[in-house]
């Protein structure tokens, strides 16, 4: 019984983390058709910014609860700044170009930003564990669980609901949907596509940074952490369907639960399980679980 509880909770915690990272990636792809490799850099900068903010905050002996606000503020700030610079300076110049060119540009940006990160924060790892350790733990069926981890599951759930409502119930969400379906038709009907792109990229960047910021209290923040994440995020997005937010949620749940099951039952297959699921889904649904098959324009 304790193993079942462990698989479910571990799977949900891992899925929550993956979803927060992957939703920004899939949003940018869905709207802008950009496979943004630089998303890993948003994650890494978010983690470093949060680690710095947490350090500054807790050094002053301020109450723990404000530390969580510091994480969110740092992520939003760094995501907005980076997203704005990247979109205005680089991506705006290549809208409409071949997707491969854009991927190469975001890949180059990712590599450059990895070095920029080292120039700013150096090579030493950074620790910002207080929000994680201070949150404490509780026990379910004999298994101690971290309050921070379960809070992360709650946050991911709220994010899923909020993003769904924002897409379906707000004016900007409807504009976004119009651009997702057909950019040219939306533009012909007067939608300011460039503005939609800018806002989408900023939101995606903030979500990527938030993913890193929420992870920072659990890990030793070191250079290179964006590389690991971007590969996993791509797996999640590929399973769910490129550009689908529901797909990102389901993809994250599948990967999270399969990985947790493998760790508990067949640990040797931990990594294999993630990519085996991806391969299996893509064999039967090459466009992913939630993507529509795209008609070819003539």
């Amino acid at each position, binding site marked *: 019984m304790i193993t079942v509880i462990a698989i479910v909770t*571990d799977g949900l*915690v891992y899925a929550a983390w993956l979803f927060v990272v992957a939703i920004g990636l899939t949003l940018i792809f869905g709207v802008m058709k950009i496979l943004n490799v630089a998303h890993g850099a948003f994650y890494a900068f978010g983690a470093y910014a949060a680690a710095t903010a947490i350090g500054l905050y807790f050094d002053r002996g301020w109450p723990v609860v404000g530390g969580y606000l510091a994480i969110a503020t740092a992520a939003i700030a760094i995501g907005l700044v980076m997203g704005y610079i990247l979109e205005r300076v680089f991506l705006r110049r290549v809208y409409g170009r071949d997707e491969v060119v854009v991927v190469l540009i975001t890949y180059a940006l990712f590599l450059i930003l990895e070095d920029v990160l080292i*120039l700013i924060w150096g*090579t030493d790892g950074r620790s910002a564990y207080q929000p994680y350790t201070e949150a404490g733990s509780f026990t379910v069926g004999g298994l101690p669980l971290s309050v921070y981890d379960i809070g992360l599951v709650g946050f991911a759930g709220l994010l899923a609901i909020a993003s769904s409502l924002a897409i379906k119930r707000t004016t900007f969400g409807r504009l976004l949907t119009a651009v997702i379906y057909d950019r040219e038709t939306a533009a012909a009907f007067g939608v300011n596509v460039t503005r939609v792109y800018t806002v989408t990229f900023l939101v995606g960047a903030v979500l990527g940074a938030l993913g890193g910021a929420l992870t920072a209290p*659990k*890990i030793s923040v*070191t*250079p290179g952490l964006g590389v690991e994440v971007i590969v996993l995020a791509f797996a999640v997005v590929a399973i769910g369907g490129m550009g689908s937010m529901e797909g990102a949620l389901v993809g994250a749940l599948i990967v999270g639960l399969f990985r947790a099951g493998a760790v508990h039952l067949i*640990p*040797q297959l931990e990594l294999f399980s993630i990519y085996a699921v991806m391969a299996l889904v893509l064999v039967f649904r090459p466009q992913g679980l939630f993507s529509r098959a795209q008609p070819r324009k003539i």
Partner: protein
Amino acid sequence: MQGTSIRACLARKVSAALLFTALPIAAVAQTTPAAPAVPPVKLGIVTFLTGPAAGPFGIPGRNSAEIMIEMLNAGKVPAPYATPGLAGAPILPKFVDEAGSSANQVTEFRNLVQRDGMNAVVGYISSGNCLAVAPVAEELKALTVFWDCGTPRIFEEKPLKYVFRATPHATMDNVAAARYVLKKFPDLASFSGINQNYAWGQDSWRDFVAAMKALAPKATVDKELLPKLFAGEFGAEISALLTTNSKVVHSSFWNGDLESFIVQNGARGLPARSTMVYTAGETAMFRLGAKIPDGTIIGARGPHGVMAPDTPLNKWFRGVYEDRFATSPTYPAYHMAQSILGLKSAWDKAAAAKGGQQPSIDEVVKAFEGLEFEGPSAKIRMAIGNGHQGIADIAYGSFRFNKAEGKAEIVDIVRYPAECVNPPANMTSTAWLEAGMPGAKCN
């Protein structure tokens, strides 16, 4: 970028050191006939300058190399290393980042030897990189000293001529860990392990299990977890360990993974159920401090750091390191120092046999085989691997956070002689462990 700035900084420092050594020579040159200048020995130093392993391993290694080379060139290292450089030749280092794939490291190694004309290379933290570089070093006949990687397989799979390792391998770490665990828990019924899924982690776990089987045949393995390197997130693994009744959990984690794992398992109460054994734990103890629970078993891959004896060489090394970098040297710093000192010992010995002339690489290789020399923390004997693999004593201890002084400490330190924890020259690690460690001398 970091690598470039580090190189520039080192170039300045080495130039300054060379200038200081050159000034008195210049003064003498005014009154005596000019002697031909000794060309420098070009030394490639490969260590992680970026990436997750840079902070806890690569940078302490680089720092150690920086001061050792500077002090050797200036002739300021205490006896028996008080003569300048390598048999009088100044050392000219070139630092290379170890980050990237093993294939990339092989390319960089070829560049160091063939393009940059390095006389020797001291390099590699990652066991994967050591395994990849070793055959290339042999092919190029390039004198190579591995300074930190731990896999025992380097010299056990094939005899090597140009490759040396002055730091003991992982078998020693894990045999000593098993002996220490059983000293603390003589009736241990079961144990678990979590190690990184590559050469170092797999070899460490294999050796620990084999040593436990030899020393406590009734103890069984509960969980055997091998997450990928640099995973960072270990929630599921911690749950899996929490579902066992293991009194002891073995881990050879290092770098950011070690710190992340300690924090995550602490928050979920794993150390309250199981005593954690970190074979490379010393690198994290000053950074994490009170986050590490008291009683955690800590190794330092030798008698290094706070477990090092108070010898004049160690006092000097600690002193210059702390003065320069405002932090204590951890075991990677010791590993780098003893590797460079091993190279110097071999170089000086080969030169002495040649009447003080600079030796050829083959002569240095010959002098290095079976060499005995003093490291800052222990005597190193190149006793196994056909005289290419060093053995030394090792120490283990239990962590304690001294709240009164706000200081991380290691108590209950036990020192194991080299012959107690290393295989003899005529056996591989695996064969020795499977045979029940015959010939081990522990008293």
